[in-house]
């Protein structure tokens, strides 16, 4: 029988010793890996705390803030029937994208819960099926815009980390629109894949064949022949102004949404 001797003492995962660990959410466990109190080593499991998940506050200031915006002015109407989520284009793809629940979290100012959904809160594609169906005319599609603005304002750190790629792709998109006046999907796709370090996936057989075919029949170069749209100068100015305005709102402090 061979004995295996470990070089190092294995580092326990956070909360690993809790028997019903799977029932407790990560963020509700507080545990320091290395902690010495008065010379006593209380590292790891010796200092574990499990926080209560009871919600103990309804914060209506958040609701008031949303209500003051143009896109979120009808937040007080929502009665949570779920028609928006039922008709949503995105929900079948991202189960965690739930317009009804997002509106409810905004109504009760439940930022703690909202924070868990930052990565999906942006995924509204603006098809407006929900707004067409909503029995109370809440206009959930625009409510998702309000949500996006507010999430950006309250969770800048998470946006910078979790949504880094989204922000970068957005920059590419904006540059493309302002620079050329046209959206080149192929280029957008390639740039996005490049940013996420998945460029190799673009060079599979199917892609290579498609590129070859497009080069052969001339489609690949047609974009170069296309000029800028008619009267582009004026449109460009308007778009730039809009983008500047949006950035001002997003980067402002409290009350910035009032505009």
């Amino acid at each position, binding site marked *: 029988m061979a004995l295996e001797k470990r070089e190092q003492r294995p580092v326990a995962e956070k909360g690993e010793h809790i028997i019903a660990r799977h029932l407790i959410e990560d963020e509700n466990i507080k545990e320091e890996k290395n902690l010495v109190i008065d010379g006593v080593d209380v590292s790891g499991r010796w200092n574990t705390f499990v926080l209560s998940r009871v*919600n*103990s506050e309804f914060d209506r200031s958040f609701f008031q803030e949303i209500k003051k915006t143009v896109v979120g002015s009808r937040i007080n*109407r929502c009665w949570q029937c779920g028609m928006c989520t039922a008709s949503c284009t995105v929900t079948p793809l991202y189960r965690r994208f739930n317009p009804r629940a997002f509106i409810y979290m905004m109504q009760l100012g439940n930022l703690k819960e909202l924070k868990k959904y930052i990565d999906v809160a942006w995924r509204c594609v603006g098809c407006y099926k929900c707004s067409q169906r909503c029995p109370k005319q809440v206009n959930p599609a625009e409510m998702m815009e309000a949500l996006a603005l507010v999430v950006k304002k309250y969770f800048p750190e998470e946006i910078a980390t979790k949504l880094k790629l989204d922000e970068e792709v957005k920059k590419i998109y904006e540059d493309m629109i302002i620079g050329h006046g046209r959206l080149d999907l192929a280029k957008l796709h390639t740039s996005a894949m490049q940013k996420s370090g998945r460029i190799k996936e673009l060079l599979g057989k199917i892609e290579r064949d498609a590129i070859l075919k497009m080069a052969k029949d001339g489609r690949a170069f047609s974009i170069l022949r296309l000029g800028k749209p008619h009267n582009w100068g004026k449109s460009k100015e308007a778009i730039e102004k809009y983008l500047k305005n949006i950035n001002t709102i997003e980067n402002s402090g409290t009350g910035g949404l009032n505009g």
Partner: protein
Amino acid sequence: MAENILVIGGGPAGLNAAVMLSELGVNVALVERDSFLGGNPKKFKYKFLFPDMQPADNVIGELIKKAEAGGSIKVYYSSEVSDFKENGKKFDVTLKSADGSETKTFDSVIVATGFEHFDPARDAKYSYQLFDDVIDIKDLERMMGENNFVRPSNGKPPKKVAFILCVGSRDRHVGNQYCSRVCCTVSVKQAIEMREHFPDCEAYIFYMDIRTYGFFEDLYWQAMEEHDVQIVKGRIAEITSGPDNTVICKGEDTLLRGPFEIPFDMVVLASGMEGGPQSPEMSSKLGIELDEHGFLKPENITLSPFKSSKAGIFLAGACTGPKAISDSITEGAAAAMNAYTYAVKNR
């Protein structure tokens, strides 16, 4: 010779029945256990009535005025039916009051003994009577009627108020499985009144379903869309005392699936309606049937909701089940018509 008809109960239904009958020239004996007419709306000083927020006095006061105007209505205040005998197709009834008793023969009888508000103290989880700031809708209605809407504990206006629906209704634990029909609308109405008078005070309604049926729905929409009343889905399982003289409502947010414990300045319990002790009393004295919910049982709930199980005895108002004031008044008129027909037929 004019007919003699007995009306038991001087609430909205009984009053309207008596007034309609007197207009037909019938001699009406109106028996009321309290020393005043008007029933529960008067007793608990209802101020405004849903759905149009008209002063309760417009309705109840008007009926009382008509009934007390004399004519062929004789009101027996602080009285009760002490003895009841069938006499052929007629009824020999003894009416007892502090002044003595009187036996008369009546051609037909209308029972309009109404309802009792559920006593929330019977359901310990709501801590009613344990904390001063836990009140119920009838207490709030009275406070508003007296223009004295403040926290009972310290006399200051509240900043955050919770309304809890389905207290004493739709709950096997307290023995009432039925829906009391009006408490949703009353709570929504009170939340609107509160927000109108105190815009700084936040109003939350904890609900399982909001049953503002028919056009009462307008009030519900108005509460949310014009007065920012927030509805939260989940029934409250426990009320405890919190820091800074608050009361904590403990429940589950069933839409987001998570427990909450929220401190409030004041909690208003939407206590439901019950048949009260008067319904079984009428049932045994008059020999009419009682239903499984503790209300008087109509002969046919759809075809003849105003007839009791015994010919010649008619039912009106909330004694047959939870009802809005407008429905009680309608039923008073329906019962009056039927009682009159019966009396004329058996003259």
